[in-house]
């Protein structure tokens, strides 16, 4: 199968510091892929390598089977950088015209494509406005309009919601889902985990240059399934007994207990241990971890040097 993006053993070093450390990643055609990570994790470096703006120290990357070093690989790619910089003296329309020419859209079709992009980002009424006079949100809209120009097969968005208002968020989400329905592959670099959770089919979490978790959204949520217990009179003895069950981790914040169990049947045993130990179970329920919780837990534990192979 030909992937939209394929990275094999990608390493990027700046002196002794590894910004990317042996990254293996594939993005399927037609999916929305979320790439998550804290600041400085290597997300933007990865994107820049894919776009041949930064060169990998070793390993290789392909876009639709084409080596990223070849300009042809970017023929059907739309890109929105994290902080877009544009010639301020151009109007939005001139800016899009410039990019349409760079993409190689024929002169007859340029106007149609520009109109379509402007309409999608609700920029029609300000098409003649100079970029230098735009607000941050409007500039971001212009940047997205530039990225979706010419109906790219692969859309790479680095923090696309930055500067957008809630209406902009909603419009962007709709746009991405529409584009996905039309077969566009979308690679989303974002800190806005709730947005990623709502739109992405698959997610990878990167920290310190390494991918610490990847999989489908549902898969990741399932693996973070845990038993949440609110109990009074919880003791260390009870914790030791629960530890002997098939769980892999306990988190206790003084009031509620979060237990990651491998076997759902053990929930009965947890209840029994607490009750027999003289405690009082106020509530006991199964909960799925949100992407935000999963992200926080994985990154936090990674930063603290804990084993990353937990569920």
């Amino acid at each position: 199968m030909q992937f939209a993006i394929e990275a094999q053993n990608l390493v990027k070093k700046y002196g002794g510091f590894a910004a990317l450390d042996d990254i293996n990643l594939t993005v399927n055609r037609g999916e929305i892929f979320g790439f998550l990570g804290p600041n400085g994790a290597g997300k933007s470096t990865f994107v820049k390598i894919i776009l041949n703006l930064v060169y990998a120290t070793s390993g290789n990357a392909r876009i639709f089977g084409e080596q990223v070093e070849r300009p042809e690989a970017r023929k059907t790619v739309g890109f929105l950088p994290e902080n877009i910089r544009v010639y301020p003296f151009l109007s939005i329309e001139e800016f899009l015209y410039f990019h349409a020419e760079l993409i190689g859209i024929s002169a007859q079709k340029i106007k149609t494509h520009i109109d379509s992009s402007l309409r999608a980002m609700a920029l029609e009424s300000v098409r003649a406005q100079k970029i230098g006079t735009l607000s941050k949100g409007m500039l971001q809209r212009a940047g997205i309009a530039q990225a979706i120009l010419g109906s790219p097969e692969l859309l790479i968005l680095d923090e696309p919601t930055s500067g957008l208002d809630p209406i902009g968020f909603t419009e962007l989400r709709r746009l991405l889902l529409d584009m996905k329905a039309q077969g566009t592959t979308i690679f989303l670099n974002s800190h806005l985990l709730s947005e990623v959770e709502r739109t992405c089919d698959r997610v990878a979490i990167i920290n310190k240059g390494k991918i610490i978790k990847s999989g489908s959204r549902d898969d990741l949520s399932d693996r973070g399934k845990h038993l949440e217990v609110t109990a009074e009179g919880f003791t260390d003895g009870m914790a030791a007994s629960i530890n002997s069950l098939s769980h892999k981790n306990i988190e206790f914040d003084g009031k509620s207990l979060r237990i990651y169990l491998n076997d759902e049947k053990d929930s009965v045993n947890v209840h029994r241990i607490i009750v027999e130990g003289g405690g009082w179970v106020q509530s006991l329920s199964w909960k799925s971890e949100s992407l935000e919780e999963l992200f926080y837990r994985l990154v936090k534990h990674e930063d603290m040097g804990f084993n990353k192979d937990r569920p």
Partner: protein
Amino acid sequence: MKIWALTKIGLKECLRQRVVYFIFAISLLFVFMAKGCDIGTIKGENMLLGKEARQGIALGISFHGIVFWSIMLCGLLASQALTRDMDEGLASVTLARPLSRDAFIAGKLLPVLIISALNLTILGSLFCWFFYSATGGITMQLPLAFLFMTISLALYGLMICCLSLFIPRLLAPLAGIVLYMVSCWSSLPYFFENLKILWTPSETVQRLHLLLPKFGDLQGIGATILSGQPAFEIGNPLVVLGNIAAYACVFWYITAWMFKRREL
């Protein structure tokens, strides 16, 4: 089409810079100087210099003044052609498109050369109009002299663009003008017979003249064509043009090699 798209943007960018108009205004003063010094307008007698000699001096100063400021303009624009886009993050959005880095360099350098050549053409035309209209007719000498200077501009622009990738972009035109001046200086003994009586070029000067880009020879050829006086030791113009072509290739390859190594 892609290079032309970049060139159009580059032209707009260049024309928005005040330095273009400032340098044009300075150069205009040299044109007016030439107008004020044609034989018809020179008044008074001078025991040392006749009217023709005074006119010749004014013509020379004007011509070289215009060329110098055109070179300055070209250098200032060329020093920012690539580095400004790289420093301000503009290049990464452009290069994320299916565009090779060679095409990017060409698209950024062309507007610099067009603006510089246009500046020289306008000034040259005015020079021609003001000076030669008074003397009766326009010969082909003048456009030909300025054509040689356009070749010099192209090489100079390429050299400064190349230098700007190695040294701070504001220093590149300065370093370039020093190189230009050294080249002109090492060419002097080969163009002025009288000078050679006083100054026999040392081996170092000869070596510099041989190895440096022949900006000085080009300027000398331009001046020679303009004055109608045969150059003392002009040598074969093909050698000069060969030197210029070779240096143009070298500067292009170094620029492309360096720019391709740069991460954005």
